[in-house]
């Protein structure tokens, strides 16, 4: 009986108010819910042929956001966020912390930030309703305004406004990546693991002062909404090749642009991995411009061509 009443409540009441709520308001409520709510979500992530199960917990301890992400398969891999600090605990290296207000690897950072930032590149469109993880969900489409980026579909829990599923799609509606909640539990108080995490002493934030400013590279063209987030020069992980690095983002899509001395083996001009990550390389004299990101290759090619030194 109580269940039926609850179900009625959940369906009838919000439905009245939610009926004419614009897509942007849904997304803003999501952004707020991701920051405010205390919940545990069991999630599966699909990428090409890979399925990765993970658990994400979020809560507030002493007014600070605390979150915990655990990958359930394979070697232990966890991330803990307390306030503005994210610590990665992985099996093969000592734990390290970085400054961040978002654990990378679950929902895109843009989901919990200002929605108006996304409006330049995407259009928000209200979609249909369907049931996900045993909950009624409202679908919101993020349609790209141009052909330079991929589109997204998000399903939101109609009750808590937390995201239940997100798909990343190519222009011809092929699925590139999907994150789907299979169980969502709303909590009354932060779970004990988060309270412990809050008290725990985590390694100090690694010093990123080593990031030296890069050259003053400019782009003669960028897709609308994209801007430079970081520029520096560093060495690549495996090969220690020195590169000039520029990071671009439109909020959802992230692009890395590298300038390096051309190697003896040329890189392929274009390449796409099965999860939608593209790589484009272009030779300019004895230098090589490489662009990587989850956007169509044409976008990367155009960005690489528009790069110039001021």
């Amino acid at each position, binding site marked *: 009986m109580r269940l039926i009443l609850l179900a009625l409540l959940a369906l009838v009441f919000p439905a009245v108010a939610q009926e004419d709520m614009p897509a942007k308001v849904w997304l803003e409520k999501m952004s707020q819910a991701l920051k405010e709510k205390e919940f545990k979500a069991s999630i599966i992530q*699909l*990428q*090409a*042929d*890979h399925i990765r199960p993970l658990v994400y917990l979020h809560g507030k301890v002493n007014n600070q956001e605390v979150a915990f992400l655990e990958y359930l*398969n394979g070697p232990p891999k966890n991330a803990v966020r307390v306030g*503005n600090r994210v610590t*990665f605990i992985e*099996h*093969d*290296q*000592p734990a390290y912390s*970085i*400054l*961040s*207000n978002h654990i*990378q690897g679950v929902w895109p*950072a843009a989901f919990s*930030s200002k929605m108006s930032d996304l409006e330049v590149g995407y259009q928000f469109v209200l979609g249909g309703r369907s049931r996900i993880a045993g909950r009624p969900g409202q679908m919101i489409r993020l349609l790209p305004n141009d052909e330079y980026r991929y589109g997204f579909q998000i399903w939101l829990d109609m009750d808590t406004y937390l995201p239940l599923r997100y798909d990343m799609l*190519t222009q011809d509606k*092929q*699925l*590139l990546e*999907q994150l789907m909640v299979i169980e969502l539990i709303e909590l009354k108080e932060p779970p004990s693991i988060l309270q*412990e995490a809050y008290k*725990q*002493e985590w390694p100090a934030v*690694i010093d*990123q002062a080593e990031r030296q*400013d*890069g050259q003053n590279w400019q782009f003669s063209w960028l897709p609308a909404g994209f801007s*430079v*987030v*970081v520029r520096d020069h*560093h060495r*690549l*992980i*495996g090969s*220690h090749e020195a590169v000039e*690095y520029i*990071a671009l*983002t439109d909020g959802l899509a*992230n692009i*890395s642009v590298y300038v390096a001395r051309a*190697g003896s*083996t*040329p*890189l*392929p*001009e*274009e*390449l*796409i*991995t*099965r999860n939608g*990550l593209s*790589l484009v390389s272009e030779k300019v004299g004895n230098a090589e411009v490489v662009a*990587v*990101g989850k956007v169509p290759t*044409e976008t990367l090619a155009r960005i690489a061509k528009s790069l110039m030194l001021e």
Partner: protein
Amino acid sequence: MDKLGQEWVSAAVDGETDLQTMAELAADTHSHNKWRNYHVIGDAMRGELPQTMALDLSASIAAAIELEPAIVSPQVSAPEVTVAPQQVAVNAGQSRVMPLFKQFGQYAIAATVAMFAIVGVQNFNQTADDAASPSPVLITRPLVGSASPVSLQTGPVQQNQSYTNDQMNEQRRRINTYIQDHMLQQRLNTGAVVEDNSEVIPVPVNQ
């Protein structure tokens, strides 16, 4: 640190930790009891308990090892290290000698970010023939319904006549380094975004 510490001890028994963690563990005498207990439990589960149980194994092994000459190889297997604290001290000294592998600053942290990025990179070279298709054969097939088991194999690479095997490998290695670095930057850049948001004026791009 307690919960985390316990996990470490447990992982160490299974030989899944690295040298630095081992050294930390070894310094923490409190963990030594746990170490022994985990091993005894493990032995019991495998039915390998000795007839008579020497109660403090680690102490007697430590004593035994003290009599042996120090092992020079840096590749010490996990059990040897933790059993004997003295041994660890030696090894800690050695690991200072071989930070060759550790000197990449922030990038030393990257190894695992990258692991899964490399997987399934399909590498195609454009030739005159397939110039007709602008983006070379994409394997972006829909995921739903094709829930195949997790596999960590690189997909078959289409051979291009003009490249030798070595060149192919070298090319793939270079692609991987770029993709790995991109993945790592996604982690590090979120920090940059935090700083951005805290400033009222947009970050000055360059002085």
